[in-house]
């Protein structure tokens, strides 16, 4: 097991470096550079000004030198400086990380928990009205664009009913502390976490239901029935456990998106997370910041792939993890 993990980690590092190089060239292939964007925003510029900016950002160097300098600093775990915000990239990302993790982990838990539960219920009541209802709702959430759902949720719960705040991370200037602050953040979290979770919840529902139905027809389930186990126990201990494998695969995919996967939701709800940071960095051609977010996201995907592979073994001991 330890050898397996070590081998995979080594591979992951090589892949990460390849991804970084690829991203570097992709970003530089886009038209414009951060100096031009900043000069453009200022509404006026001259050659001196542009030259100053490019020198300050190191953009006057040849591209291969820029790549070399960047890789060298990444290997030293330094993601460089954001041109635009005049701040170390790692600090900027670390600053946004708590909000992002809070949002995406809540969405993860909600979607996984509700998804498996509803999927299990639907499969147990196959063909009945509750199954139809669950499947239909799941299909609707699966097919609806996230940002539209988000806007509708704001219109209903925030504008019409006034139950929940429609944007932001907490009430600015309210001066809450302790539990009051936690509750305040929680109330801001409900809408974005729910809307973000809905899509994956729908996927889990459909996946769990289909997979459990398939397992239901297998011989060992018949055996369990024949030896007189109660239906609840059969579903929980035999069917669900065997049906979870594809769900774990998907959960691994979703977990990989924990850091940078909520651009739309963070934008609509003005949630100060990393997805937005990445999107803004892209439109401002803030190369270092954008690459930094990419590096972290890629590392997360690789990490969760590894965790998923290990989890397979826990869920289904028949699988031999080998390197």
């Amino acid at each position, binding site marked *: 097991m330890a050898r397996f993990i070590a081998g995979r980690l080594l591979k992951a590092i090589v892949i990460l470096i390849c991804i970084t190089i690829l991203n570097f060239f992709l970003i530089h292939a886009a038209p414009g550079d951060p100096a031009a964007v900043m000069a453009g925003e200022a509404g006026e510029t*001259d050659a001196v000004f542009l030259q100053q900016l490019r020198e300050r950002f190191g953009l006057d160097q040849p591209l291969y030198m820029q790549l070399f300098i960047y890789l060298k600093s990444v290997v030293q775990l330094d993601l460089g400086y954001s041109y635009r915000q005049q701040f170390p990239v790692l600090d900027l990302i670390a600053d946004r990380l708590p909000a992002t993790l809070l949002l995406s982990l809540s969405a993860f838990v909600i979607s996984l928990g509700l998804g498996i539960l509803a999927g299990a219920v639907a499969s147990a009541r196959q063909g009945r009205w509750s199954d139809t209802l669950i499947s239909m709702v799941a299909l609707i959430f699966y097919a609806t664009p996230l940002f539209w759902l988000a806007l509708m949720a704001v219109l209903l719960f925030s504008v019409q009913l006034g139950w929940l705040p429609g944007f932001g991370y907490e009430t*600015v200037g309210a001066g809450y502390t302790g539990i009051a602050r936690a509750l305040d953040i929680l109330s801001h979290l409900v809408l974005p976490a729910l809307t973000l979770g809905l899509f994956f919840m729908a996927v889990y529902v459909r996946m769990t239901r289909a997979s459990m139905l398939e397992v239901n027809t297998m011989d060992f389930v018949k055996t369990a029935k024949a030896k007189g186990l109660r239906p609840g126990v059969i579903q929980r201990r035999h069917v669900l456990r065997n049906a979870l494998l594809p769900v774990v695969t998907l959960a691994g995919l979703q977990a990989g998106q924990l850091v940078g996967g909520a651009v739309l939701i963070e934008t609509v709800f003005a949630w100060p997370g990393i997805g937005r940071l990445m999107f803004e960095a892209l439109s401002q051609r803030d190369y270092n910041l954008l690459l930094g977010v990419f590096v972290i996201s890629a590392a997360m995907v690789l990490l969760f792939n590894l965790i998923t592979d290990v989890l397979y073994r826990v869920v289904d001991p028949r699988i031999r993890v080998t390197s």
Partner: protein
Amino acid sequence: MRRLLSTSFAIILMAGAAFAAPSAGGKVNLIVQPEPPSLMIGITTNAPALAVGGNIYESLLRYDEKLQPMPSLAKSWDISPDGLTYTFKLQDNVKFHDGKPMTSADVLFTVNDFLMKTQPRHRNTMARVESVSAPDDKTVIFKLKQPFEPFIRSFAFGSQPIVPKHVYEGTDYTTNPANEKPIGTGPFKFVEWKKGSYIKLEKNKDYYLDGKPYLDELIYQIIPDGASRAVAFETGKIDILPGGSVENFDIPRLTALPNTCTTEKGWEYFAPLSWLWLNNRTAPMDNPKFRQAIMYAMDREFAKDVLWNGYGKVATSPFSSKLPFYSEQEPQYAFDPAKAKALLKEIGYDGKPLKLLPLPYGETWQRWAEAVKQNLGDVGIPVEIESTDVAGWNQRTANWDYDIAFTFLYQNGDPAIGVERNYKTTQISKGSPWNNVEGYSNADVDKMFDDAAVAYPAAERQKIYDKLQAKIMEDVPVAWLLELGFPTIYNCKFKDIVTTANGLAESMRDAYIEK
């Protein structure tokens, strides 16, 4: 009787409101969009930075809606009869936010050192200045090489914010830690910036004007999505939506809300004017008659009424009508497709399709591009829309890689500062989207711009600018669209939120909540 009573009651109430002294206290939630890169407006001069930084930093003068100077850090000023010497007397008891007094030494440092390194526009202005001196702590004297009438309008906070010498002298200005926690003399002090969420400023209790500012706190919320900003105003979480912070199609819905006021004021200094860059270097745009045909083909009243909800004004000159020296000269180009077609026929236009680059600033601009495409298509000019993002737009316009491109530019208070950069031959230079991007070159026009800049007094400048506007209107180097109107939408309980030509950015010191 009852009606009469309520009427007289209303009159009494109104009279009461008019004479009541502004009350102190309260906070205001505004939008800043997009999130500024920095608040140090001596270095970063984009619109969102100025919108917040204008409360933190001040300059020598402010300007009223006619662009006439008003006192700010200078309490009085004097221009010698020959137009060469400008003497400013500074206010008493002005302190920076760190408690140190602001004196003429700070002004000298700002104009001679700091801004010379950081701001292109300041370098241009200072090229006309012979010397700056400070005979005492409270006096600053600018001596010009030759008369330059627009000089009196170049002391706005966006062009010349006074920065603290004791903080910046001898340091690298762009990396000084004070840029993170800006120190100015303004009515509000920087408190906190939660990146991605909000920027908080608080009342400067040591402000040199007694009783001001009235508000305790300014909170600039950062909400990246336009629809969410509109909702935030609807739900009362936001009190003031500065011009341009919501999509135009949301404006009628928001202005119809109870207790909601709007104003178009506060944009007189910038006076944003929109036009289409026409690439004068390539056929058929190299032919003035083709360019005139484009002017006749466009239904600009429609664009104003439908896309801009009636805000703004159809452009009638290369100068915005809010600018000094504006005058309406012939020829004018009313919507006249028949005339456009006749012109195209006369020059034998072959129907070559043209590429149109919309401005990537949201839905309104996209729709406007579609309207122009249809207008031009109707007279027989096939147009293809090519969309790109902001960086791509910058890159393509700055490198002249377009046929027709949307843009709008600030006019910055004077034709010699904000207008001539788009038409003079010397302003043709790759790499900037804000100079003579269309490549128009006319020796007469160049000379008139040069003469008008240094003619003195103002009446002499007016004569030249009249002729100049007529000449440019005839040549149509670019196709002017609208003087843009960006209405500020706000909760009516806030009063005096726009008291200068620079709008919200420097008016919050006068704003108060009506009790």
